[in-house]
């Protein structure tokens, strides 16, 4: 028979829970923490004292109170002092940011990525360069507690190797290891699929707070997906799950970068929108997609037709997902925000005819609250996760 958790384990768990609370909900009074965590006041006081001593939070008097009695101290995350590096590798952009505890972007650098061959050297070099620039500007009393990266590719559960998306060039690369070596901060870089991380970010600090069943559809050049079912991100056997962009919606349809035909991303990705309007090759990326939506709005019939067709296929894809997973919220992020808002009539008409009435009844379709930063914030959350799991241990590790 296994003995119950030790006092030390309980304390560690509670420290993590309290820190997570302040990290996600922002400054919270001790009284509120007491009621929300279901612990007594002296426990909260002891936990806060530990976290304060570790430099993770600080306590302050609230700005103003209208209630009678001694005001309860407010616990704030030390956003300016405790931070992580977050990276986002999209097809068209590279982003590096310094994100403080509490999810505040303290500093960021962004570069346009030219399409074409994925060069591990070039990309990790650029990202590490950005991080060094930002690191140099920090004050001596700040601590970097982790690093995380979002990448458009499949990340293996076992060895962290990244199988790049077809749009980045099919290769298998040791991305996290190489970036960590280049950073030379003595920190491992946790790596996750961009759409998966965006789903987690939207659930922890976007519009999916408190939601257990959420699907995030991230439009870059292709379509990535993050499926959270019953509170957990679906990874599958090797961690490659959730690739909804390669769900075949139109057998024999448009060719996809993966080699198949009629994948969701082939029918609703950037190329499906740009090619019929004669724009493919001249302009690419988010701006080009926006230009098509704008042209459709101004009355350009080829743009309208392309957008309607794309909306129709997007509706088919979402209807399939709704039937299989019965999500509470489907979030459209990246370039799919523009596509959804520009073709919602087609998307929802498809849902009305193709999705099961019981499954779509309470479905909410939303655009991402975190917007273009959803993937980056997901990377930051990934970097913070080990600190939240065991705050003191994680801090002890980095300060050595």
């Amino acid at each position: 028979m296994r003995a119950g958790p030790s006092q030390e384990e309980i304390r560690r768990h509670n420290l993590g829970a309290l820190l997570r609370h302040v990290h996600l909900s922002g400054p919270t009074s001790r009284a509120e923490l007491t009621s929300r965590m279901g612990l007594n006041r002296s426990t909260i006081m002891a936990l806060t004292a530990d976290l304060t001593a570790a430099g993770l939070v600080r306590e302050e008097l609230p700005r103003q109170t209208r209630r009678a009695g001694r005001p309860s101290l407010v616990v704030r995350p030390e956003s300016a002092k405790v931070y992580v590096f977050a990276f986002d590798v999209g097809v068209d952009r590279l982003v590096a940011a310094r994100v403080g505890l509490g999810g505040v972007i303290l500093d960021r650098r962004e570069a346009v990525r030219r399409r074409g061959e994925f060069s591990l050297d070039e990309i990790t070099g650029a990202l590490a360069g950005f991080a060094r620039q930002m690191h140099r500007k920090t004050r001596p009393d700040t601590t970097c507690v982790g690093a995380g990266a979002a990448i458009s590719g499949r990340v293996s559960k076992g060895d962290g190797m990244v199988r790049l998306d077809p749009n980045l060039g099919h290769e298998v690369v040791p991305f996290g290891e190489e970036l960590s070596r280049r950073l030379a901060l003595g920190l491992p870089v946790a790596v996750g699929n961009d759409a998966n991380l965006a789903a987690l970010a939207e659930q922890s600090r976007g519009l999916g707070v408190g939601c257990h069943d959420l699907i995030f559809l991230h439009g870059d050049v292709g379509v990535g997906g993050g499926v959270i079912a019953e509170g957990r991100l679906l990874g599958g056997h090797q961690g490659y799950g959730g690739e909804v962009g390669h769900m075949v919606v139109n057998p024999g349809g448009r060719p996809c970068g993966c080699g198949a035909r009629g994948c969701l991303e082939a029918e609703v990705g950037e190329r499906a929108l740009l090619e019929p309007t004669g724009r493919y090759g001249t302009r690419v990326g988010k701006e080009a997609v926006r230009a098509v939506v704008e042209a459709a709005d101004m009355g350009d019939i080829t743009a309208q037709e392309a957008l309607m067709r794309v909306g129709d296929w997007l509706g088919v894809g979402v209807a399939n997902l709704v039937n299989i997973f019965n999500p509470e919220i489907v979030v459209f992020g990246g370039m799919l925000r523009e596509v959804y808002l520009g073709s919602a009539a087609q998307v929802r008409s498809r849902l009305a005819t193709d999705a099961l009435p019981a499954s779509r009844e309470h479905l909410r379709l939303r655009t991402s609250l975190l917007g273009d930063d959803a993937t980056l914030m997901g990377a930051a959350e990934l970097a913070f996760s080990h600190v939240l799991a065991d705050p003191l241990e994680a801090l002890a590790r980095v300060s050595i």
Partner: protein
Amino acid sequence: MAPVLELRGIDKSFGPVQVLHDVNFSAQAGEVTALVGDNGAGKSTLVKCAGGIYPIDAGQFYFDGKPVQVNGPRDAAELGIEIVYQDLALCDNLDIVQNMFLGRERKRGLVLDEDSMEKLAEETLASLSVRTVKSIRQLVSSLSGGQRQTVAIAKAVLWNSKVVILDEPTAALGVAQTSQVLELVRRLADNGLAVVLISHNMNDVFAVSDRIAALYLGRMAAQVKTADVTHAQVVELITSGRSGELGLHNGSGVAS
């Protein structure tokens, strides 16, 4: 749950012209109800009846499930009904805070309580996740169309309102600003308000609405859940008052 706002059997005539015939309409908290219809179908008239601007000839007005009398805009405002008109009614020469509190300024003694107004305006914009406005002390004349719409909507939300009615909020905007306003409309409802959205743009309607109420020649053709209908059905309801099983039938008073 009872709808926040419910109108039953509304008739309204202007002289010899009857513009609303026995109209039923409701709006639920937490939902966006789109009000659609052709030009002259009676959308604006219905909304002005709800806002107490036009007296109704016949019918009942319920708020939070209770019958109420609305004899003017003041009554409607007291219940928590706010209307944002197409022309927005903002003053160009005043800043955002001044516009939001125009005519309802807060005072501390004899002077205006600028601090508390500024704080409340800031909180309201933050609660709507508005990031497009740089400073709340900016003059409204310096704002873009989308930002103006945002300020007008925030102004309507400021007064603990329960129902916010938006008349064609995206009509004059480009794509990028339309997207921002649509997201704002959705957020209002997600924050718990009952939102009524008048729009001609079916994409906007489908992008954010939970229910669609279609007016046809002064009658309510149907009020349906957006999840249950297609674009084609809504267009049919707007243009002919019926679509298959949905809508007006000969028995319900429309001339065949």
